[in-house]
């Protein structure tokens, strides 16, 4: 049934249900406001917990504290200018965001097949580097949520190398604006490949160390295994994606499903949750999937480097901006593009219009938002400490939840 102008807006109905729930809080229950300023809501998420002592009866998430009008911005400027704003969605994986956005514009323009292989490989290389950086944050902050501070610092130490490399390539530490429609901001700096392989050599032995410290730690396992079990059907119904969905045992990775960019040419596995320590889809599985994905990303990076140093070596006449259009001229169309972000499926839905390079509407589907939506379901009847463990294992970035 279509929504009529004179009807009560649906959100008012939800608001009324929420107010009724808060009014019905009994004497045995306590309402705890967790956030927006709380150490482990990973930003400015506000959770209202209705608890019985330490037992969480219900979680009511409030989002919107970091709303920055991305979609409105995208409606008021051209595609090239929007790329820096996509960087600010999931600010821990800016490369992946702009890759998804750029891919959509290129497909609408019909130039996605003409992009030189070297550019595609560089894009995949920086995206995978950024994926490692994002997962390192997820792993490290999860350690903090569980109470181990050291893995966080180790992860940041390794992430710093990636940040420095990407800064060298793009000029910025976190928000790169490096991938452009039709090409790149600039070719990789001379010596980047060598430094990157050096990083890979340095980074590979660090992962087993992290496993010893955290993944296989008995206390860590007892805190995360069998906690927050997310069955595959529930995950699909809530629109979960990325490591969240894969941990529930669904082998769904858009890099393989959609085969975009040069991923079909690259060899990598899709780690899924197996329930090794508890049940399939518990917090430990989600954590483990991220650890495994870091290993797979390292494999992808190695292959990219091999090709970038071999058959796709830099040449003097290579211009990464050769295909960058002066003006993006599109016919009016609707187009949905999606890509596998570290957090899950990032999608952009474009509604373009004729004779202007400003889109009529751009809807961003943030994976964190959809992953977060399952939290009230997972957090029914758990302890407060488990709620933190579950929230951490979802790995949200508020920049993307609120957009």
């Amino acid at each position, binding site marked *: 049934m279509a929504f009529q102008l004179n009807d009560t807006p649906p959100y008012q109905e939800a608001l009324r249900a929420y107010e009724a729930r808060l009014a019905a809080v009994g004497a045995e229950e306590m309402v705890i406001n967790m956030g927006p300023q709380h150490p482990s809501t990973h930003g400015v998420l506000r959770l209202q917990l209705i608890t019985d002592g330490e037992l969480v009866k219900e979680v009511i998430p409030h989002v919107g504290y970091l709303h920055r009008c991305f979609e409105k911005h995208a409606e008021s400027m051209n595609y090239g200018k929007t790329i820096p704003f996509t960087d600010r969605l999931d600010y821990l994986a800016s490369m992946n965001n702009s890759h998804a956005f750029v891919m959509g514009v290129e497909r609408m323009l019909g130039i996605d097949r003409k992009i030189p292989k070297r550019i595609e490989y560089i894009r995949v290389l920086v995206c995978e580097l950024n994926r490692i950086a994002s997962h390192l944050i997820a792993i490290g902050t999860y350690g903090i949520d569980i109470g181990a501070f050291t893995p966080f610092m180790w992860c940041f130490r390794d992430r710093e190398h990636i940040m420095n490399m990407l800064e060298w390539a793009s000029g910025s530490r976190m928000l790169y604006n490096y991938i452009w429609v039709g090409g790149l901001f600039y070719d990789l700096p001379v010596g980047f490949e060598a430094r990157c392989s050096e990083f890979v050599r340095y980074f590979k032995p660090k992962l087993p160390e992290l496993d010893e410290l955290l993944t296989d730690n008995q206390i860590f396992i007892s805190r995360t295994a069998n906690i927050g079990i997310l069955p595959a059907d529930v995950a699909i119904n809530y629109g979960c994606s990325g490591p969240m969905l894969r941990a529930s045992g669904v082998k769904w990775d858009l890099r393989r499903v959609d085969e975009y960019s040069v991923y079909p040419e690259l060899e990598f596995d899709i780690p899924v949750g197996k329930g090794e320590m508890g049940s399939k889809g518990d917090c430990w599985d989600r954590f483990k999937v991220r650890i495994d994905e870091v290993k797979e990303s390292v494999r992808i990076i190695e292959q990219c480097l091999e090709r970038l140093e071999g058959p796709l070596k830099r040449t003097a006449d290579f211009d990464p901006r050769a295909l960058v259009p002066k003006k993006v001229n599109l016919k009016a169309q609707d187009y949905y593009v999606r890509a596998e972000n570290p957090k899950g499926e990032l999608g952009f839905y474009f509604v373009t219009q004729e004779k202007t390079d400003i889109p009529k509407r751009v809807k961003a589907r943030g994976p964190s938002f959809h992953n977060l939506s399952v939290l009230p379901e997972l957090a029914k009847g758990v302890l407060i400490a488990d709620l*933190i463990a579950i929230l951490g294992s979802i790995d949200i970035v508020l920049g993307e939840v609120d957009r």
Partner: protein
Amino acid sequence: MAFYLTYLLIGAILFGFIAGFTLFAVYSERKIAGFVQDRLGPMETGRYGSLQTLADILKLIQKEYITPAAADKVLFAAAPVIIFIAIFLGFAVMPWAPGLAPSGLYLGLFFVIAIISVDAIGLLMAGWGSNNKFSLLGSMRAVAQIVSYEIPSGLALIAAVMVAQTLDLREIVVNQGIQTAEHLLLAGIWDVTDIGGLFAWNVFQAPHLLLAYVIFFIASLAECNRAPFDIPEAESELVGGFHTEYGGLRFAFIFLAEYAMMFLVAMIGVVVFLGGWNTPLPNIGAVRLADWTTGLVWGIFWTLSKTLLIVGVQMWIRWTLPRLRADQLMSLCWKVLTPLAFLCMAISGIWRVWVMV
């Protein structure tokens, strides 16, 4: 008059020691954390950051007293003092060297265990008085945890007391070294009364006390709210736990109490199980290492170095392990540590009756 002066002086010296130790411990904790986490730790204030904690204390002293409007003013103000005094008083009976203890109390160990328990009341006052839900949850957790863990730690201490046959801490220490009047047997077999050193410590006199010491060490970590049992102040869950609302000097006192508690429980373990001020070096024939390294200054040296070593282990554990959940903490206490401590106690009885005749 001189009597009161002496006691005031002793109190002042102990307070000075605790404050100095806290300064040192906070600095070393940061440096240890830095080492474990592959970073430098404080480096800017003073040489190698050595003045960092002093600067922090200065900052805390200058801060305004902020009492939340809805707080219970009396409880809120009194709690840090009670928490600190409870732990400070525990130092009263700790022996430092042969013949050097602030107060000679024949029920020394009993006194320490009893006075530390008052800490729980202070924590409850802090949590309730703050009128903050996180503080309340934190203090509830703290009290549940401390009260539970007093049982295995108390039982483990009783196991040692049954072997030592006294509650007087000075006596317990003397009976672990060459100055004893009793016969000391290593593992109940080999007479080490003259050899002394390491072999005469309680944990080696009766090997099951090693288990008792491990139980006591784990329980003592829980009693001073250190990781992996820091759930009362679980930063990622309860913001700051019972001290969420505290700032300035009041927070400094809670902090001081935490580090004093670390030192105190480490020292109890050292005194009861690890020989106290006794030297770890044995007499080997004519090489009278134990005789040479026993005395007032040596006593203080050994007590301090053993205790600081244990404090170092506490810090090492804190920066390595994740945090347990409240119910897991309880099941560890009641299902593992308490039965094991009972077992130690039973073995102690058998040991005393049949081995140490």
